Each structure stands twice: as structure tokens, then as C-alpha cells.
């Protein structure tokens, strides 16, 4: 199947489009700021930026309903922003402060929000795939009609546990959308150098799981595909695979010089396929928004991000007693 493009005349309101623009821009500006704070030594360790892949989470969140769950890898800032987690709490977790979502104890790769049904933030490549299926297992067991999005990359797609999970997810008809964010590089290894499979989504066929390839630089194409996947899951037909072709502009992590690809390759993607620029053009050419309107959004986003950065610097480091808390639960609050 060829990569699906969005319908030529997308059935989408100006309001929705502006929403997508705003959310994608928030992720990009947030990530640029995170990169800057990393450079200043305020963020330590590993920091994996989502710049270039914004359309994936924004499109899929547009296809989700309240109560649906999501779980992803360590490249997780975009997913958290897209599901509505407070940028302040995310940035403060990146700086390892008390105001962070994990009180500074998780860091960039390990963040969670029970309130927003965001189940991490996992640092072990592909561990989130069976966990996502397990969340769907719980939903099916409880009969609440919810769907889980389990995001993973093209690198994770070669881990054995993905296929163990495919097998059981289809066997038990679990309502889980497997989202392969194929950004074409597993750290420094291109997909071509790691598999002879022509596509990754077609591997699901061996387990009876349907899927499709999606243009991950188009937020509307992602949303459309997401709606098909969610409808499949919600109808009780089991899992669905979306291989979303996307691209990360930055290195694998902040310390990656990205010598495995040319500067021209990255620049071409930015110039020709940028997900935010695409929506911007639709908004302007369709006269759904003026340059002034978009500038106002840019300004608003910049303020949100600056506030998050300020908060992340001002929030104190966790109290030393925190070293010894949250190792064992006394009571675990259960899902509503």
C-alpha cells in the first residue's frame, strides 16, 4: 500500500487547523528551549528532542477520545505536551526539580501523568510496547471501551518483545494502536542498515494485524489514519498498526553529532516537508488565518514556553527526603 496522503480537500475546520498549528508549534518551541537549557547545563544526562515529528502526536491525539491512554519511549516530550500535560511540570522534570511531574526523580525519559492517562516515558527500547498492550488488556478486562496508543520507533521495531506483543494483542483482540514512529534512524543506524523488510507495518500481517503506512509530516493524514485505527480498536476488532513516516531534525540525543546523514538531507526535509510549515501554508492560502493571527499564536506560545523555562529554573531541587520516598506504595490509587 502506498503512503496515504491526506484527502485533497480535507474536511477540517479552520479552528481545528489552528489548534493543530498551535500544538505543533508548542512542541517545537518547547523542544528548542529544552535544547537551550541543556546547553546551559540546566538539563543533564540524556535529552531526546522531538523536533520534526510534531505531526505524529498532534494528529493522533486529535483522533483520541477522553480516557484513551498513551505510552511511549524516552523521546517523550511531544507526547506529553500533546496530551495536555502542563509544560511547566514537564520542563521542571527536565531540570530535575520538585515541580516536575515526577518530583525530579524521573527526568526527561521517565515521566508519567495518571490524570492525563500518560503511562511514560520508558527508557528501555520497546519495553513500552507490551506495557501498552497491557493497558489495553486492562481496558478490555474492565470493559470501558478505551483505546491505548503504544508509540515506538523504527529501532524498537526490531526488538523481540514487539512481536511477542503483536501475537498476544491479536490473539486476545486488545484495543491497542501500535504506532511505529519511523524517523528513519535508530540512533545512528538507518532503517536500510537494520532490516531488509521493505516496510515495518507489514510485519503485523504475520500475526493477522492490519495496518498502513502514513505520511507523518502531514498532521491531517496522521489524524485520518488515527481515526481508522481507533475505530478498528473500538469496534472490538483488536490491534492496528500505523507506520508513520517521519523525520527528526536533531540528533538522537543532545550529544549526537549526527554524522550518519548529510546536512542537505535534513535541510531538504525542513524546507519541503516541515509539518508546521505545511499547516501554516494551508491556513494562509485558504485565508483561514492572517499572518497577524499566526504571529499572535507564535507570541502566545513563546510566552508559555518562557514561563515553563522560568518555572523550571525557579522550582527548587527536591528535598533530600525525597531520596527515600516512593520506593514502596502504601496504597495505589486506582483508575476511575
Amino acid at each position, binding site marked *: 500500500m502506498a503512503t496515504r496522503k491526506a484527502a485533497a480537500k480535507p474536511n477540517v475546520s479552520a479552528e481545528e487547523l489552528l489548534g493543530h498549528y498551535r500544538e505543533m508549534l508548542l512542541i517545537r518551541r518547547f523542544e*528548542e*528551549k529544552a*535544547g*537551550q537549557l*541543556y*546547553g*546551559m*547545563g*540546566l538539563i543533564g544526562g*540524556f535529552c531526546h528532542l522531538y*523536533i520534526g515529528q510534531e505531526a505524529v502526536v498532534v494528529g493522533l491525539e486529535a483522533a483520541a477520545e477522553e480516557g484513551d491512554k498513551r*505510552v511511549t519511549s524516552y523521546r517523550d516530550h511531544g507526547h506529553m505536551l500533546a496530551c495536555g500535560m502542563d509544560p511547566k511540570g514537564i520542563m521542571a522534570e527536565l531540570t*530535575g526539580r520538585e515541580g516536575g511531574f*515526577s518530583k*525530579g526523580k*524521573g527526568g526527561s525519559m*521517565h515521566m*508519567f501523568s*495518571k490524570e492525563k492517562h500518560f*503511562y*511514560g*516515558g*520508558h527508557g*528501555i527500547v520497546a*519495553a513500552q510496547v*507490551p*506495557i501498552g*498492550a497491557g*493497558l*489495553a*488488556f*486492562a481496558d478490555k*478486562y*474492565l470493559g470501558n471501551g478505551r483505546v491505548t496508543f503504544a508509540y515506538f520507533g523504527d529501532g524498537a521495531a526490531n526488538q*523481540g*518483545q514487539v512481536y*511477542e*506483543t503483536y*501475537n*498476544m494483542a491479536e490473539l486476545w483482540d486488545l484495543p491497542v494502536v501500535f504506532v511505529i514512529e519511523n524517523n528513519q534512524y535508530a540512533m545512528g543506524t538507518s532503517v536500510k542498515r537494520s532490516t531488509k523488510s521493505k516496510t515495518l507495518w507489514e510485519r503485523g500481517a504475520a500475526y493477522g494485524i492490519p495496518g498502513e503506512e502514513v505520511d507523518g509530516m502531514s498532521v491531517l493524514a496522521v489524524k485520518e489514519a488515527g481515526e481508522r485505527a481507533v475505530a478498528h480498536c473500538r469496534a472490538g476488532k483488536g490491534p492496528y498498526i500505523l507506520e508513520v513516516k517521519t523525520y527528526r*531534525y*536533531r*540528533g538522537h540525543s*543532545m*550529544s549526537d*553529532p*549526527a554524522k550518519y546523514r548529510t*546536512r542537505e538531507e535534513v535541510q531538504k526535509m525542513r524546507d519541503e516537508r516541515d509539518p508546521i510549515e505545511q499547516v501554516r501554508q494551508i491556513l494562509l492560502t485558504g485565508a483561514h488565518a492572517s499572518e497577524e493571527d499566526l504571529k499572535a499564536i507564535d507570541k502566545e506560545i513563546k510566552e508559555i514556553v518562557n514561563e515553563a523555562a522560568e518555572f523550571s529554573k525557579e522550582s527548587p*531541587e527536591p528535598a*533530600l527526603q525525597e*531520596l*527515600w520516598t516512593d*520506593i*514502596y*506504595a*502504601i*496504597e*495505589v490509587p*486506582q*483508575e476511575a
Partner: protein
Amino acid sequence: MATEILMPALSPTMEEGTLAKWLVKEGDTVAAGDILAEIETDKATMEFEAVDEGTMGKILIAAGTEGVKVNTPIAVLLDEGEDASATPAAAAPAAAPAPAVAEAKAEAAPAPAAAKTPAAPKADKSPDWPEGTETKTQTVREALRDAMAEEMRRDDRVYLMGEEVAEYQGAYKISQGLLDEFGAKRVIDTPITEHGFAGIAVGASFGGLRPIVEFMTFNFSMQAIDHIVNSAAKTLYMSGGQMGAPMVFRGPNGAAARVGAQHSQDYAAWYMQIPGLKVVMPYTASDAKGLLKTAIRDPNPVIFLENEILYGRSFDVPVMDDFTVPFGKARIAREGSDVTIVSFGIGMTYALEAAEKLAADGIDAEVIDLRTLRPMDTASILESVRKTNRCVTVEEGWPQGSVGGYISSVIMQEAFDYLDAPVINCTGKDVPMPYAANLEKHALLTSDEVVEAVKKVTYR
């Protein structure tokens, strides 16, 4: 307002670097994402991108400069309409913030030692069930099944999954009858796929269920250990207390008989090491039942180590509506005054046998069954050692990094002055389990070895 562009840290360990090359010059217009410079870090040459838009003002550090400290201003970025003479509003940049992690480490050192060893100061010696309670004889196998059935009746979030647990009634018949009573929704046969179903169960626990995962043997848990340790044990901490994994991983552990090296390992010491896990290893049927019920109710991931040889052994079990045994409470299996023998699980077989033999020689051994290894009831061990002044530990696992090694260290730190002899750790031999009957017998622990160790520490 002009802003200073600072020398960035581009790796977790970078403190200074070389400004190799400027890719923009003064007066250039830059947009967020444009590459400004190439910087050599301690690992590689990195491209440095602009975060804000503006016009390049003065370049403060020339290309080719080495040893530029992180956070040194390297250039000035001007807003629209500013000229190059503008200086940043905040002329004095904040001093380079020290990485938070370094500070935390330094300050964490004097953390209260008490928090590390949650040992109750006084041993709890209350009986496990009220005196006069009727008891019945039951095998460990039946006790485990009853515990699961009772908890599944009590809480419909509890379910059992594993290989052959449903239609086959359990590879070792522990789940006998559960499928009939609870149905296929709650007693679930999995494909042979430990890594996958352990991960699914962790996800299900995040999602509000209370999974019991049966490993056909704990040897196969090594396929799943990433999810046990990284996903189940650490999530509560990593989420700042928002969510954890209330679940039980259970199954036979350690040597059975003649099944060779890959099916005979004792994992007690391995799992005992992990903060976030609780580790239980019962010996009697009443403990198997009472502790498994506690494990299923516990809001944390619990490793429940059973033993194939013990499955068929019978013990007294109290006839009670809801019998549970708390974690972290050892059982004095035999009172004595000359030496303390500490063991758990099948090790208790050797410990008790040895105590009988020693009694015949006039040595009065106290035998402690730890029952749970994490939390460990060190208070009971210490109280006993302060009385007997001698200690021998008994386990089937290997010697290096053993449970007994940890117990010895606790005794050294807390009761050194009470010791009249060095603590001896009786363990399995430091070899993979051989298949040949005679070799296997030698690889395993014997009660005679325990007797010999006790005679050493009592100088007899």
C-alpha cells in the same frame, strides 16, 4: 532586547570545548534552528543551533578558540532594530549552574541510616494465628491454590496469567480448578513468551488490575527480568509516586531434581537486591497461603519464590475465613540457646534436620525462618544472635552475593560485639547444577554441612 548566546554543554560530561567554526557572521539574520557554529566537545564535533530569531551582533569568541568554558558568552543576538552596540540587559550571566545531580549526590551522603535498614527495633514474636484455632493438614500446593482462589473471590481485579495455568490446570497443578471457578477471562493461558506477557501484566497493573503472573519456573523469569526490574519495580519511584505495579510474580524457584543447570537456579539473592520489589520465599503451607494472600493485596510488585520439592509436603494450616501472614516478620521455627541458624524456603529443610542432629549432640540450635527476604526481619536475627552469640545461614543459592552474605554484614554492623565466632554461610556449591545424580547431590546443600558449620562456630 539583545541576548547573549552562551557556550553550550553538548554532552552529559562536557565542561569546556573548542569553538571550531562560526557558520554565521556579524550582521547575519538568523532564525530558530539555523546552525550558528560548530563546537568540538569531549566526544565529537557538534552543530550548534539558534534558539531565537534575530540578527547576529558581536561575536565574542573567535573561531578556533580552545577551552571555552560552558556558559561563557560567545556572541550577542540582537532583536529587530537594535544595533551592534547594544549590550545584553542581563550583562552578568548567572554563574554556570552546577549540574543538579552532582549536588544531590554530595548532599545525599548523610541521609539517615535508619531509612536504609527499615528493621523494626524489636522483634515481633506474636503467633501467626490465635491459640486454639482449628488446623487442617494441607500440602503447599493446595495452600497456594486456596490463597489465589480466596483472593480472586475477594477482588475481581485479580487475575492469573501464565503458561498452562488454565486448561492444563498448571504445569505443577497449582492452579487446579481455578479455570472452572473463575473462567477464561481471569485464568489465562499465555503463549510461551515470558518477556511479552510479563510486560503485558505490568501494563495491566498500571491500568488498574492486580495480575498474578506464574512463571513455569523462575529460571524463565530471566527472559522477563527487564520488565520485573525496570518496568515493575522502578515505576513508582520514577513517577514520583503517581503509579506503580501492584502485582505478583510467582512460581517454583531453585533446584528440583535432576533437571540440570538451566532449570535449577535459586533467584532469592538476585531479586532481593532490588529496591521496589518485595521478595517472599515460604517454607510451610500456612506461610505459603498467608503470605501469598498478603502478596496479592500488596500495592507493590512481589516476587513469590516457591519450590517444586515443597509443593507436595504437608503442614498444618489454620482453618480461618481470612488467614494472612504479614511481610517482614520472621518465624522462630525452633527455640534454642547455643547457635542461631537462619534460613528460608527449602533451606529450612536442612536447617531443621541439622537442628535435630545437633540436639542429639547436645547443641541447642535456634532456627529462624525468614519467610520474606525484602523486607527482611533483621530485628529477629539480631535479637537471636545477641542471645546465642553464633550464627550460621543456610540457603541453596550460590555463595557470592548470597542472602547469607547480606545477613552476615548486618550482624557485623549491628551485633559484632556479641559474636563469639565468625558467621558461616552454608550455600549451594559454586558451580552450575550438574545432571549426574551423584554430582547433583554434592552440588546441593546437606544437613551434615550445616551440622559441621554449627560445630565450627560453637568450637565443638
